[in-house]
């Protein structure tokens, strides 16, 4: 029986259990609903849960363990000629057996021993599935009868159902948290492996980045250089250009929208800005590479500057444009949170609108705006696609916005694109970079959120 059938049957049974539980509860109360502790549908849910959950848990356990159990049994059944091989070869053979069993193409002409093993494998899985079906059905029925027997007007069905729901919710959030922890740990482990090959001091302070390591000993450029400083400066340079674009524009538009715009304008402009926020960054990347970079180059050349076709300026400007809606909508919220009474107080003293904004509203909103800008910086540092497409790969150590630079994110992306061997310093350096990036953006985010929260508290 395929998996979906199992689950469908289980669902039907649970539904039946729900109906049964409800009617049983109603009749146990003699039709007087007020005698029941909970609303009838909670009794239904109570029964449905007893029907569905144990069987479902069993199913989950079985799908998790089936592979290991069956594999071990198949392995044990293999002839001695095979079991005497090295562990690695046995693994390869097991892969072949799997492929045979699932009817896939194998790497060699199947030997009879392997075909037999594959048949055995399928046989075992068949038995396993059959047994699973029977046990699940039995569990579901047992649950049904158990739960039905416990239905009684005094049964606290609602509390029990809610407890189970509570547990399910906790499990779901645990999944999210554990994934995060897992990601951080894997990043950390790989980064540590990298730092055993390249000392952290060299990585963090070295001035030359050229991660090409030789595959064969006779190749040129056999030693990679892993000094990440050019990447850090490149990242900072582009982020600085982006902020130089995004902060003034975003802030001004926020001021316009929250203080000056009539509600009609506000109603149309805000959604447009939000559309800007919804454009995939890869599309901004096109814009940067195909429109902005040539434009910057042409303008630069006509002014007599030597501009490379991929410049930090082009990438930074487009990234700034990308961040504008982020800055403006956060600042807009923050400016709106400045109490009207402060504005009234200022107007009441004969201040004009612009005086009020400059001297009262903005200073009052400043901490929040700083927080918003920090969040924007952390986005700029983490942004990848635009820089991949517009800033280039040349890891130049330069402060000149007209030169090509590379960033941490771009290097991570290029280092890991395509087939990689995961024990070379070249590949592992991506994790070192990732760790730095993660630490920096996390710190920025924490500071920014603190600042914003502090600010919110002040005016609540």
């Amino acid at each position, binding site marked *: 029986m395929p998996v979906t059938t199992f689950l469908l049957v289980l669902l039907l049974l649970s539904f039946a259990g729900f109906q049964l539980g409800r009617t049983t509860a109603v009749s146990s109360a003699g039709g007087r609903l007020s005698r029941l502790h909970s609303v009838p549908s909670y009794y239904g849910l109570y029964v449905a849960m007893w029907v569905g959950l144990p069987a479902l848990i069993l199913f989950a356990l079985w799908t998790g363990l089936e592979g290991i159990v069956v594999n071990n049994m198949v392995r044990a059944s293999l002839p001695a000629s095979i079991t005497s091989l090295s562990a690695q070869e046995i693994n390869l053979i097991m892969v072949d057996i799997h492929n045979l069993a699932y009817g896939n193409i194998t790497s060699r002409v199947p030997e009879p021993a392997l075909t037999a093993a594959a048949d055995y494998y399928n046989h075992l899985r068949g038995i396993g599935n059959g047994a699973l079906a029977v046990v699940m059905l039995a569990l579901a029925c047992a649950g049904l009868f158990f739960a039905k027997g416990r239905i009684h007007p005094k049964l606290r069905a609602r509390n029990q159902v809610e407890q189970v729901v509570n547990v399910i919710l906790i499990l779901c959030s645990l999944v999210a948290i554990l994934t995060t922890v897992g990601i951080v740990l894997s990043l950390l482990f790989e980064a540590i492996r990298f730092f055993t090959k390249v000392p952290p001091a060299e990585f963090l302070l070295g001035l030359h980045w050229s991660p090409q390591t030789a595959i064969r000993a006779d190749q040129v450029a056999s030693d990679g250089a892993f000094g990440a400083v050019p990447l850090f400066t490149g990242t900072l340079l582009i982020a600085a250009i982006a902020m130089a674009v995004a902060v003034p524009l975003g802030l001004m538009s926020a001021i316009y929208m929250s203080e000056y715009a009539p509600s009609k304008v506000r109603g149309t402009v805000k959604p447009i800005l939000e559309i800007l926020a919804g454009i995939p960054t890869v599309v901004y990347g096109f814009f940067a590479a195909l429109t902005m970079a040539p434009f910057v180059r042409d303008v630069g050349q006509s002014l007599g500057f030597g501009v490379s076709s991929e410049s930090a300026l082009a990438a930074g400007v487009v990234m700034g444009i990308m961040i504008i809606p982020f800055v403006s909508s956060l600042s807009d919220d923050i400016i709106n949170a400045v109490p009207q009474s402060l504005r009234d107080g200022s107007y*009441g*003293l004969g201040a004009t609108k612009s005086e009020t904004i400059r001297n009262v509203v903005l*200073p009052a909103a400043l901490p929040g705006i700083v927080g918003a800008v920090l969040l924007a910086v952390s986005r700029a540092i983490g942004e990848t696609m635009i820089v991949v497409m517009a800033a280039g790969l040349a890891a130049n150590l330069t402060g000149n916005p007209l030169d090509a630079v590379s960033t941490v994110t771009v290097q991570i992306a290029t280092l890991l694109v395509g087939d990689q061997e995961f024990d070379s310093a070249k590949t592992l350096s991506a994790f070192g970079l990732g760790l730095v990036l993660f630490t920096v953006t996390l710190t920025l985010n924490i500071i920014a959120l603190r600042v914003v929260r502090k600010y919110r508290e002040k005016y609540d």
Partner: protein
Amino acid sequence: MTAHTQTMAGIAVRPQAGTLTGTVPKMDARGVKVYYGAKQALKGIDLEIPERQVTALIGPSGCGKSTFLRCLNRMNDTIDIARIEGLITLDGQDIYDREIDPVQLRARVGMVFQKPNPFPKSIYDNISYGPRIHGLASRREEMDEIVTKSLQRAGLWNEVKDRLKEPGTGLSGGQQQRLCIARAIAVSPEVILMDEPCSALDPIATAHIEELIDELRENYTIVIVTHNMQQAARVSQRTAFFHLGEMVEVGDTEEIFTTPRDERTQGYITGRYG
């Protein structure tokens, strides 16, 4: 715009609405109507504000006291949907005239709000804010003097003279409200409007402010909105009773509280509704 008097059926035209005997009123409202969108909040108010006296506006919530007060310094201009009809003069000049800049008007007609709203700046900067934007002091010493004088007049000087650099928001509620009064005084207004200035304060702070209002009367014309009958009786010389967007009755405070002419006034001050 012509001044006119609206009456409800059976209610006599207010005899007090005419000119005050002898003196020219500092401010004069004639047929003031205010609409918030389609909703009419004031239905034709005629009221004279005599100079260097305290005029109290009383009446149940939502009857338009704040709305009227905000007409007197054109604070309603900052509300998009508000529309004002009628005539209001300050020293005989129409304050809604095209010639008049509301910003300059508000320097002459200051306002103190219900909730103390000091700026998140130092005490000194709170006071110097108004004089600075109006260019009232060219040198540091002049500004210092304005700040000192204003704080003294608001009765706050002794409490804050050693911490002028500390934020105004760190003061107690009553001190904050006196700071706001000092801030209003600092731009040397002629009229000070106060919208329930004590409603957020404890009785002691309230007593402080009431005393202050009584002193300020010497130099300023004051209009105060209050919910507190005793307060109106204590601090004001004239009282106007508002009801459902109309001004029902105005007269000397003593008269209003002892021999109100209108049934509704009587009902309100004896606490039958409100």
